[in-house]
């Protein structure tokens, strides 16, 4: 009987002290996984027919045309 009382007492103390424990208060964000539909690549269409190099060349040319120093001076 005394053993049972003792173990109940120990368990009660342990439960009571759980509230005093230190827990991490900062929320750590975990990057979720995209849940939507998959997207196609910009070169997967009729214009480029999957030719990535051609698409990149086109974008590169457009990029450079924004530089007026280069565009005007040749």
């Amino acid at each position, binding site marked *: 009987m005394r053993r049972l009382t003792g173990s109940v007492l120990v368990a009660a103390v342990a439960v009571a002290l759980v509230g005093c424990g230190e827990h991490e208060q900062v929320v750590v964000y975990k990057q979720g996984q995209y849940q*939507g539909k998959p*997207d*196609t690549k910009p070169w997967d269409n*009729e214009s*480029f027919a999957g030719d990535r190099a051609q698409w990149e060349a086109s974008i590169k040319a*457009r*990029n450079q045309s*924004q530089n*007026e120093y280069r565009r005007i001076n040749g």
Partner: protein
Amino acid sequence: MARMKFICDAERCIECNGCVTACKNEHEVPWGVNRRRVVTINDGVPGERSMSVACMHCSDAPCMAVCPVDCFYRTDEGVVLHDKDLCIGCGYCFYACPFGAPQFPQAGAFGLRGKMDKCTFCAGGPEKNASEDEFRKYGRNRLAEGKLPLCAEVCSTKALLGGDADVLADIYRQRVTTRGKGADIWGWSTAYGKPDAPAQQPDAGGKS
């Protein structure tokens, strides 16, 4: 792989709103939704500055972090896009975004909040490239046509640049080193050149 970014040169932007108009027209964006807008600081004061602002396609986008349904994704080109079929229109992304990029259509008389709409870097969304569904939900997919965002390409002063970040950095660097800084970049002499010879002074003892 290109890492697509926008950069706006505040020294060049003249607040013409050409980028805003081009964007609205190209994507047939509804009334009340502004994927791009021009912000002016110290409006009307000499030395005022304007900047064209839209989604900056952040590398570590806060909108992606707060979205409860994970409807955002980043393409291999670094463009942040979202799936409108999944969006619940909660508005968390609007509060998280430091640029105010996410927009919500006001569908009803009582301000019903619709699905989020934002700048797509003219890259459409998760629908078949150049399809009718893609245009209706996300606007035109210029990237799939081998073109850059219209707002940047239409900019008359080339204040707004869009494209591969490395190339944009090179363009901007060349521009800054050419034009100088501070008071050198605006004023009469910069616009019209310095006179070759000093202007003739009026004759002090002129005819009376």
